[in-house]
């Protein structure tokens, strides 16, 4: 194989050439955006223009854009910051209502608050497709509306690609005057994201998931949203996030979001077609493979256009991963690793999938560089990999 087939865009997607140029250009320029002299003003101007471009692309106002180091920081700031602020205002607000299939940046922030700050949590159950029901959220709130500090539910899932009814759930939270946060790290760049229309109070996104650089992200925060900051210092970013701004990173993020937004509709159609071809090919390969979550040809309302999540009975995901990697196909098991070992996914378990079934998971995610040839190469390599991985599981289990 002369070049690898990259099918892991949900992990990170290649930076676009225009983004790389913009970052390089900005890196060559001196200037701290907080300085008052000419160089500082020039840097500040780049940041503020970028902020306006991001705001325009995501249906937000410029003052609602908080630049961070990435999705994890944005999630931490939204969850912890809101909890501390809202409970500080009213000590009865010690309850969080949070999706059970969230990214670990959300789950671990919540568990930290439970362990160290006296928070309570109600996890929002999901159905077999991974979707949360707004009425279930309402029922959880109604147990004691005055005790809820925050409701948080991801826009789209990073493993199985399930798209959540965020606007409906934001509306339910607002009926009770409770703020709503959504982790939109996987959605931005793949689905139309309009912050104002979504009703969310807080929204997390990460540049390298939509063609920008790694290490920079954003939190959209409504003008009336208030948080206790995680970092203290120079008071940048509405005092939500002190620290010298990463001007080249922010420039790259803004260029990337503009490119992603401009091509969104065409790209969505193209990715859905590739996705459906990939899923269809895998299901028809006679390998007893199942697709996880909702799958309807052409649908983008329930599944991300670039996500295919397959379960291969009788295999360990890490064997599949190795065999496909050796065949030049780069993909993921989708679940978090502990010391390099993929763990059974909490997302699949929450969807009611048995632990043994969850071990043979394979996540293939498409993006702007994906092509028909990538999908064909994957489908070509799949049968031999599955056959070998099944033998390997039997062997390593001593069967």
């Amino acid at each position, binding site marked *: 194989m002369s070049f690898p087939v990259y099918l892991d865009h949900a992990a990170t997607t290649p930076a676009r050439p225009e983004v790389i140029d913009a970052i390089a250009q900005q890196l060559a320029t001196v200037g701290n955006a907080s300085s008052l002299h000419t160089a500082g003003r020039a840097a500040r101007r780049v940041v503020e223009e970028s902020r306006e471009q991001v705001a325009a692309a995501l249906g937000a106002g410029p003052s609602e854009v908080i630049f961070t180091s990435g999705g994890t920081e944005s999630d931490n700031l939204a969850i912890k910051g809101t909890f501390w602020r809202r409970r500080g205002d009213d000590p009865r607000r010690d309850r969080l209502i949070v999706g059970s299939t969230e990214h670990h940046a959300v789950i671990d922030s919540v568990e930290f608050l439970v362990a160290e700050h006296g928070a309570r949590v109600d996890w929002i159950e999901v159905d077999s497709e991974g979707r949360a029901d707004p009425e279930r959220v309402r029922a959880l709130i109604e147990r004691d509306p005055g005790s809820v500090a925050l409701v948080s539910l991801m826009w789209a899932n990073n493993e199985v690609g399930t798209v959540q009814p965020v606007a409906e759930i934001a509306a339910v939270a607002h009926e009770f005057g409770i703020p709503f946060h959504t982790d939109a790290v996987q959605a931005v760049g793949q689905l139309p994201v309009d912050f104002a229309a979504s009703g969310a109070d807080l929204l997390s996104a990460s540049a390298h998931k939509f063609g920008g650089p790694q290490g920079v992200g954003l939190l959209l925060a409504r003008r009336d949203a208030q948080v206790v900051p995680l970092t203290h210092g120079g008071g940048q970013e509405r005092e939500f996030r002190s620290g010298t701004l990463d001007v080249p990173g922010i420039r790259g993020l803004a260029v990337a979001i503009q490119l992603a937004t401009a091509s969104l509709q065409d790209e969505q159609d193209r990715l859905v077609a590739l996705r459906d071809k990939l899923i269809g090919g895998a299901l028809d390969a006679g390998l007893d493979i199942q697709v996880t979550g909702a799958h309807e040809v052409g649908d983008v309302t329930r599944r991300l256009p670039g996500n295919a999540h397959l379960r291969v009975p009788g295999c360990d995901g*890490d064997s599949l991963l190795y065999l496909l990697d050796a065949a030049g196909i780069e993909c993921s098991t989708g679940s978090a690793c502990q*010391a*390099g*070992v993929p763990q059974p996914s909490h997302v699949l378990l929450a969807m009611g999938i048995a632990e043994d079934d969850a071990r043979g998971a394979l996540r293939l995610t498409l993006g702007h560089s994906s092509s028909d040839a990538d999908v064909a190469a994957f489908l070509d390599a799949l049968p031999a990999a599955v056959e*070998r*991985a099944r033998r*390997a599981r039997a*062997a*390593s289990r*001593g069967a």
Partner: protein
Amino acid sequence: MRVVAAMSGGVDSAVAAARMVEAGHEVVGVHLALSQSAATLRESARGCCTIEDAGDARRVADRIGIPFYVWDMAARFKQDVVDDFVAEYTAGRTPNPCLRCNERIKFAALLDKALALGFDAVATGHYAQIVDGPGGRELHRAVDPAKDQSYVLGVLDADQLARSFFPLGDTTKPQIRAEAAERGFSVAKKPDSHDICFIADGDTKGWLTRRLGEQPGDIVDTDGEVVGQHEGAFAYTVGQRRGLGLKVPRTDGAKRYVVDVEPRTNTVVVGTQDLLGVDLIHGDHARWCGAAPVGERRVGAQLRAHGEEIPAVATASGDSIEVRLDRRARGVAPGQSVVLYDGTRVVGSATISRAGRV
């Protein structure tokens, strides 16, 4: 050949992997995750399989330019090595978990998985040599007697040997460290690991007691007189002298040793040193590195890791062997392995079931 290099994160397996690459093989590094709750950082020379160790192995793999994966064998390791270790102590025997790990994990679960995935062999950083002999591949002692690990590999059969590489057997440990430094490996000065990897603090008795609970009982002498108390016979090993805490001294002042452990009655029997000498050993679970010997056979018998080799006559009979030592050996505990040598060549091994006198 396509070879999996088992990489613990230590210096030996790092050099072994590099040597396999230089020998022209297509090598993939694999770190085995054996602990079900791996610690983040290594705390001492003991223990292994921390996330830091996996990271060390990954850096070496990066450096020599091979793919690297972590394979989760924690469930198999618990079942086949840790649970077996506990069961053996519970039964009054003294197991060697490194041998068990080689037999059931490294050259079984790992090798079988590698073969199923399309590899031809496994390479490890053990100090031992494989020699092509007239009757097939032979396992021999390493050239460095201080590091020789052929004892813990004595469980390998001919098929396993045919699928194994030990690239370090022709080199001494100081030379391996020097080679690792020359290769620029960050692990060149990493301390050797010692003792039992899954008992990080080295306190086997405490570890067993935490698992099995205290089971108080009597320590008796060979006449049946109670001379002390213990908190679980499972924690004692034949030949042990330290930590007995005997309350009743012998009138002649002679030192006393554990001479028997009776799990059925939860009793530890102590006696004088002369009772420990044995020259007739029965073993079962025999494994042969090649064809099983027929009839009586002159061998050298090694009774513990880094123990001396004692001239002996071995007679095999199915799964069992009888070994008559030319001179008495002390502190031979049931559960340990006897490994038989012909010169430097490993003939085979068995688990000691009982030991006595001719």
